[in-house]
């Protein structure tokens, strides 16, 4: 090779090398849990952006036309981007309910989503709708399914969810949706793992017919590990999980999966606005972008020979964003049938019935019709007790004339805050529209009454509290806590599962004894037997609550509308649930459903030697915890002794965290120290071995 050739070759090689070594930033735009909210709505926003604080304010958030503008702005600023849509999308609003979700499909498709994962409520119409929307039925199967479900619009972007396997049909044994997908973004190979809901069979077994859902921590750990390994083996430089398990389970998975297998969990389902990513033991970050009203942005910079770096920002969808005209037109088209009142007579031009003819629910008035007025704030934004659940369960109890009222702990919400000032200065009116009614109840269930013993009532409440507040995320299920009227509950949220209820008393006075028989007004699904009320078995003589005007059973939307119209849904009085542990709840904690944060890296711990007491057979010592960080560590604060030999017991443990014993710590100022006593029984005199962890938050 001549000297004249060598120089250009070296130049080219050098340039190539420089290009290969160049850092590339991939932008993940994370949108989750739209809940079919096409238009802006009121929201309650913490004043301290995820930090513990005592206050919140009313804000206008969301609206697909504004979201579209924000997405366009972000994609212009960060061209190497991917837009993810995760969680409940086509369910949660009145337009969606009356169209099997179809009304929402075109506007969401127009957002330019690259990849998605369905939420639990996207399974909420029927298995036929689910298969038509997300599956790959044959032509014959499609005709059969459409015979029951009608035409179902499909998302134009791929959806993942290999944790659901079909058990019937031509694709039996195959996943409903693929588990993974790989995208090349600005030269970076990114592997996506999709996890859709694991709780559909619990919601209603009818919705899970023909499908098998992966269940439990071990199954999901293996699912993530296996798929991540395959993606890495195929050359993926980044691996992310899009998950409908909720941030509590995803945080746990980030602790137990193989180190370095996953870069980020993008979570949905639990509606938590996470401003500071959680960091799992595996090295994976975990984030969730609230629900409708936020867009999360994760910048991940990849550079050869270096670990990726991460930068997470929560971007609010606010009224300052211009409405994108294309999306606005689609939203207007989707909503037009629900607002059409050409005669201005307060009636829809064409009444709209549910796609399922077995349910008589019907819309006859425009959805912006005001059906009631609230004089005090009403929301369902608290994991333990919310003003809406209190108000509605009391109205229901009063109407039904029962001892108790019960309403499910949905995460559906439409904040009504009369008198509260929005960010832009205008004051909320307190009007309640038909659309609001459906935002609280986008599910067409019936109302019913039954009776329950005091003993079974306690079990029901315990089960519900474990489902919300269990320290083992994979023992959690459902949404937030149910709403009860007619009973005051004394609970200890910091207790272990099954031991939280301390006392139950009637609001009219007197303790509720195990042998008492109490009448309860609640809800009933079409397939529930006469022993089931609001999904709980063990009730007696459950019968429909009948509308005397029609002699038909009340549906929840009908009865709520009726009682709002009559002015019988009133702001609740004093709290009915008292937590003896005084557990801080949102916004005192960053998450509505208390979420643990691992602070182990921010402290140092030193164990003293142990002294053996020959009388008790116990070993006693101390562990000293020093806050090595610059930030104070707030309560609830726990010192967990992990991986203790099963034959060695921490006898002064105050509870368990993922089956590991813990001791409660007091708050620790920056640089502060706290020393706690530890007492072990060690009958086999084995070497005492454990890892200390410090967690705050949670219960």
């Amino acid at each position, binding site marked *: 090779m001549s000297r004249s050739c060598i120089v250009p070759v070296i130049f080219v090689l050098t340039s190539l090398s420089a290009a290969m070594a160049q850092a590339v930033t991939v932008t993940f735009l994370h949108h989750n849990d739209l809940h079919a909210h096409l238009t802006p709505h009121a929201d309650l926003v913490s004043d301290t952006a995820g930090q513990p604080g005592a206050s919140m304010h009313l804000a206008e958030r969301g609206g697909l036309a504004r979201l579209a503008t924000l997405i366009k702005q972000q994609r212009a600023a960060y061209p190497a981007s991917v837009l993810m849509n995760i969680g409940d999308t086509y369910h949660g609003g009145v337009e969606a309910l009356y169209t099997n979700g179809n009304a929402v499909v075109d506007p969401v498709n127009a957002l330019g989503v690259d990849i998605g994962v369905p939420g639990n409520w996207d399974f909420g119409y029927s298995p036929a709708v689910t298969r038509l929307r997300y599956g790959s039925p044959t032509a014959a199967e499609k005709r059969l399914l459409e015979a029951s479900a009608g035409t179902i619009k499909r998302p134009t972007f791929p959806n993942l969810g290999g944790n659901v396997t079909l058990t019937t049909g031509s694709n039996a044994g195959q996943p409903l949706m693929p588990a993974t997908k790989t995208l090349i973004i600005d030269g970076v190979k990114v592997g996506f793992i999709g996890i859709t809901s694991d709780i559909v069979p619990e919601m209603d077994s009818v919705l899970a017919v023909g499908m098998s859902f992966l269940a439990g921590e071990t199954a999901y750990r293996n699912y993530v590990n296996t798929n991540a390994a395959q993606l890495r083996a195929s050359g993926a430089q980044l691996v992310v999980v899009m998950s409908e398990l909720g941030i509590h389970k995803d945080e746990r998975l980030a602790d137990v999966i193989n180190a370095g297998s996953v870069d980020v969990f993008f979570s949905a389902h639990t509606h938590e606005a996470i401003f500071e990513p959680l960091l799992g033991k595996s090295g994976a970050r975990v984030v969730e972008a609230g629900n409708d009203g936020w867009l999360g942005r994760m910048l991940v910079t990849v550079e050869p020979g270096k670990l990726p770096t991460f930068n997470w920002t929560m971007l609010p969808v606010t009224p300052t964003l211009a409405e994108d005209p294309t999306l606005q037109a689609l939203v207007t088209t989707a909503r037009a049938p629900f607002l059409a009142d050409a005669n201005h007579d307060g009636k829809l031009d064409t009444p709209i019935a549910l796609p399922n003819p077995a349910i008589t629910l019907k819309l006859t008035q425009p959805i912006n019709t005001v059906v009631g007025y609230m004089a005090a704030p009403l929301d369902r934004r608290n994991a333990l007790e919310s003003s809406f659940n209190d108000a509605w369960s009391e109205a229901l109890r009063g109407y039904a004339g029962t001892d108790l009222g019960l309403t499910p702990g949905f995460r559906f919400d439409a904040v009504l805050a009369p008198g509260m000032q929005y960010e832009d200065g205008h004051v909320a009116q307190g009007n309640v529209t038909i659309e609001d009614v459906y935002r609280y109840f986008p599910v067409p269930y019936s109302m019913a009454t039954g009776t329950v013993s005091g003993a079974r009532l306690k079990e029901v409440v315990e089960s519900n509290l474990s489902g919300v507040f269990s320290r083992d995320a994979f023992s959690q299920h459902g949404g937030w806590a149910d709403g009860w009227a007619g009973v005051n509950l004394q609970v200890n949220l910091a207790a272990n599962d099954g031991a939280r209820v301390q006392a139950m008393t009637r609001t009219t006075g007197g303790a509720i004894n195990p042998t008492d028989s109490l009448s309860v007004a609640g809800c009933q699904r079409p397939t529930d037997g006469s022993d089931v009320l609001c999904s709980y078995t063990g009730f007696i003589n459950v019968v429909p609550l009948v509308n005397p005007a029609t002699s038909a059973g009340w549906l929840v939307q009908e009865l709520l509308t009726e009682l709002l119209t009559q002015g019988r849904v009133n702001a609740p009085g004093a709290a009915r649930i008292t937590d003896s542990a005084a557990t801080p709840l949102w916004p005192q904690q960053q998450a509505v459903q208390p979420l643990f944060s691992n602070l182990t890296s921010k402290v140092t711990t030193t164990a003293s*030697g142990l*002294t053996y007491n020959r009388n008790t057979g116990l*070993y006693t010592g101390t562990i000293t915890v020093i806050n090595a960080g610059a930030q104070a560590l707030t309560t609830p604060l726990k010192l967990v002794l992990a991986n203790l030999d099963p034959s060695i017991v921490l006898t002064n443990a105050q509870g368990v965290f993922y089956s590991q014993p813990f001791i409660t710590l007091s708050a620790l100022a920056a640089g502060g120290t706290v020393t706690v006593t530890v007492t072990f029984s060690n009958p086999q*005199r084995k*070497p005492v*071995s*454990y890892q200390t962890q410090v967690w705050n938050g949670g219960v």
Partner: protein
Amino acid sequence: MLRSTLFQHTLLAIALGITLALPAHAETWQIDIDTSSLAGISGSLDLQLNPGASDAQPVQVQIGHFSTDATFGGGLADGAVSGSLPGVLVLDNTAALNAWLQNLVFGSHIAFTLDINAPLTAGSGTSFAALLWDANFNPLLAATGEDAALRINLAPASAPVWISSSAVAVSTVPEPAIAYSLLAGLGLVGFVVQRARRRY
């Protein structure tokens, strides 16, 4: 002149260094326990050296110069123990429980020296404890909030923490090596000072 001053200062620095450089982790202590309030009671003396967890670095203590007017019964060793009382007893912290249980009828006092070798730099701490039990293993002469009459917490990179009841008196016993260092250092200081006085 300059060289002489430099020599003098160097010598002084060495002398002070020798004097002050006491070993940090090899120390001998004299322990005296006043058991006069227990005289005639049957019970036991329990000397333990236990780690906080299995990641504790090796620690060894030697109990010597044991003296008492108690009436001795049998003794029982648990874990890493060599020797026996009233002779020299060596405890290592390698097992969960490393202890010598000496049955006795208490007299008026118990005394012994304690050599601690604990060059700890990381991991969990280790505790030496002297516990006095009655015949039913109820603690006697225990420090406030403790089972032990004396507990010494040995932790990485920090001085031992002593917890003891009022019946326990602790004093230091300079080890021969330390004493020789001290004497040599002081001697050098004296030499330097004397030289300086002669010059001026």
